[in-house]
């Protein structure tokens, strides 16, 4: 390494045109303290910072609002936190095309407000707001995924800065586009390990004229699955289907969006489908679209829709074996739920769930957990196609400066 420590600070400061400060404890990434926080306000500055990091071998962790920064494994090392909240512009919103381009640091709340003025929205509703960049890097949405699809399907173009400081774009600003590889999809959910997003183009959806919810209590794992599948096989086109489950029983709720009259007719039909005890409401259940609150460990568990019962059985059994209460909540037709539980029970619980993963056909990932849990248990678990993923990482970030160690298999 040809760059000395004092040089580094001076050159980083120059690259970020002065927007550098020493890190504090509050800047730690999953318990690992960085040396500097750099806050660029242009893509060019991001390029300069990363070019220097690449040359000097400085480990860089990109950060938006920090709402999901604790997710993932702790970085192997962390020299610079790249704070992107200075890149917060709405670059373009063409309402007639249902397309918007925003910088990575723009807060989702702000973006939704921009779009709502034209009766539009970005069809995501993650439990933690955060920024555009964080949304895409973590691929986290909420109940509306049943209607609008995952985050990756809403991303139609990206501008990124590569680990070596080179700026590149993919996709564009039209929805229908098959020119070249769809890098937007590869970057979505890559947790800051491949490149730094600076701008994202999204396809938008119209705001619904009206929304209503219908809920039904479910008293057993079998009942939960039966109702979920009845919703899945219905032709009522709900835009969300969520289960809240704790201690062997729960509530399943659906959301209908659309024109006023249509929504009311569909809700009426849905009440029939959901069965005895179903009720409709003009506002969501208070837990709708939020994370469960069973403890300080938060897991994301995926499952095949028709194995919901098996998943809930496994969760309940593993929780009682670990002597803890687990709380499950999530999108049971899509097949992604959150499970939360106390840290003390987490290692045994995760091991048991992963051991039974073939019963529900999904994967178990630790999002939030105290450092001792993340030390004891692999955050990501077994990974299909890991060797290919390593090769992708090596191509994008050959010197391993972008969020090293944060992702699957130590990537």
């Amino acid at each position, binding site marked *: 390494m040809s760059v000395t420590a004092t040089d580094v600070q001076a050159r980083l400061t120059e690259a970020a045109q002065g927007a550098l400060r020493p890190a504090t404890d509050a800047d730690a990434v999953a318990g690992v303290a960085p040396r500097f926080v750099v806050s660029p306000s242009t893509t060019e500055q991001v390029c300069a910072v990363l070019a220097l990091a690449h040359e000097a071998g400085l480990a860089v962790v990109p950060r938006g609002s920090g709402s999901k920064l604790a997710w993932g494994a702790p970085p192997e090392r962390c020299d610079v936190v790249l704070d992107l909240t200075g890149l917060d512009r709405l670059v373009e919103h063409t309402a007639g095309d249902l397309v918007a381009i925003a910088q990575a640091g723009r807060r989702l709340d702000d973006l939704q407000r921009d779009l709502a003025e034209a009766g539009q929205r970005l069809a995501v509703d993650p439990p933690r707001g955060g920024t555009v960049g964080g949304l895409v890097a973590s691929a986290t949405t909420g109940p509306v995924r049943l209607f609008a699809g995952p985050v990756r399907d809403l991303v139609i173009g990206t501008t990124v800065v590569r680990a070596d400081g080179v700026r590149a774009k993919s996709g*564009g*600003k039209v929805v229908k*586009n*098959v*020119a070249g*590889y769809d890098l937007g999809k590869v970057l979505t959910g890559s947790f800051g390990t491949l490149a730094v997003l600076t701008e994202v183009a999204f396809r938008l959806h119209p705001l619904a004229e009206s929304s209503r919810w219908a809920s039904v209590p479910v008293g057993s794992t079998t009942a939960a699955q039966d109702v979920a599948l009845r919703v899945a096989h219905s*032709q009522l086109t709900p835009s969300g289907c969520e289960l809240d489950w704790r201690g062997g029983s729960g509530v399943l709720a659906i959301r209908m969006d659309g024109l006023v009259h249509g929504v009311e007719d569909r809700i009426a039909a849905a009440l029939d489908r959901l069965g005895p005890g179903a009720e409709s409401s003009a506002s969501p259940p208070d837990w709708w679209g939020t994370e469960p609150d069973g403890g300080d460990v938060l897991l994301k568990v995926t499952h095949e829709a028709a194995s919901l019962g098996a998943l809930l059985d496994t969760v309940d059994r593993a929780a009682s074996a670990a002597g803890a209460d687990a709380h499950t909540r999530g999108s049971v037709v899509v097949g992604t739920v959150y499970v939360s539980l106390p840290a003390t029970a987490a290692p045994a619980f995760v091991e048991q769930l992963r051991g039974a993963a073939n019963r529900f056909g999904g994967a178990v990932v630790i999002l939030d957990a105290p450092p001792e849990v993340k030390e004891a248990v692999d955050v990501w678990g077994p990974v299909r196609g890991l060797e290919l993923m390593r090769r992708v990482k090596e191509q994008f970030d050959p010197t391993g400066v972008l969020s090293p160690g944060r992702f*699957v298999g130590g990537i």
Partner: protein
Amino acid sequence: MMASMDVAGLAAELAPVLPKDAVITDRQRLRTYECDGLAHYRVIPALVVLPETADQVAAVVKACAARRIPFVARGSGTGLSGGALPHADGVLIVMSKMRDILEIDRDNQRAVVEPGVINLQLTKAAQPDGYYFAPDPSSQQVCSIGGNLAENSGGAHCLKYGFTAGHVTGVEFVTPLGELVQIGGKAVDFPGYDLLGAIVGSEGTLGIATTVTVRLTRLPETVQTVLAAFADTDSAGQAVSAIIGAGVIPAAIEMMDALAIEAAEAAVQCGYPEGAGAVLIVELDGAQATVDRQFEQVTDFCTEAGAFEMRIAEDDAQRALFWRGRKSAFAAVGRISPDYIVQDGVIPRTVLPEVLRRIGELSEEKGIRVANVFHAGDGNLHPLVLFDGAVDGQRERAEEVSGAIIDLCIEHGGSITGEHGVGSDKARYMPKMFGDNDLDTMQLVRCAFDPGGISNPGKVFPTPRLCGEVPGPKRGAHPLVEAGLAEQF
């Protein structure tokens, strides 16, 4: 020649691994595979193999990798960008023998299929359970799921339901190194990079899928279709803007201009309203309560925009008739022109009137007729550039017009291809849409999957070998279309 000696050795090595008659070396039989749906490009492959299992595909690819021999995968060969054009010194791996539907899993809303399964065949298999496979390219009677995956196929209904990329949840996949890997499955969000996002739409340059797990979509409760006739494309375009602007997302909105209508009438007698300068087909599907009300909105918007006639499909037969004119449009222009180029470009929907005007000016300036058929809801244009190759200079002028249309798309912030792919045909346009750094960055993915560059080389990314080649006019219809087996968008 070195390469052909290698191929001879390869054929001998593969014969024991593959079924009897699955290795083709006879020149006449090889010629059968010389082109895909873009028949202007023709290359006879050095060797054709027809594997029947994933292990056989892996063995073929591994043998190619060991000898650095390029390979090209081919499904049904209906692609319109030359994506399955063979390599003269390479192996063409024909996937059509792997055509079993392995599982229809209704409760999980998934199907597991081999890549040679025909798109429509999957829909038919799922229909008794109340489901279907949503991507519906017009070649769906013959195109394969593997080809849909490679090209990220769309179709008229992807306005609402999205492209193939949104419908693939897992693959068993042979990498260009010959590794057989599982990616994804029936569930979503497996941990790690979204490799499926790279693979779907990579046009065969990242490897070969040997099993595909796809989403099945619930059949809608109801479908409503209207055919609306307008004096010109401007007023039809106004109706489209009004519909989209009101927050309605139809399953499809298709537009045809006067020349395209004339061709369709000549070919299939679809009986569109006389004197129409443009027709729109608008289809809504979903829950009855929603569709009924939105349909009223749609017909109101059409009336306001000046529709002089509207026909509402009474039943599936009439709906099929509406679609027949639209779906036959590509082949139909063969009735009014000896030769034509099928173009595929995308523009932001809001610039549609301006771009159509510019296309009209180009057409007039060069004395070349252009029939316009397009997915109006998402700005995906399919101009059909008509010419007579027997007339001196017409071909060249048609190619100029076709190229200028793509330039218009780029100039207006659109794309050089909405669904036909880059393939062999448009690799040379890629630098107009993307800079060197953008293309380099895409190629990082290529390098990760295919360091030797043997998987469908020369496609998607511009290479010296393809630089400066002429655009691809079509003469007559694709053999499958002529045989009545397929329609094309």
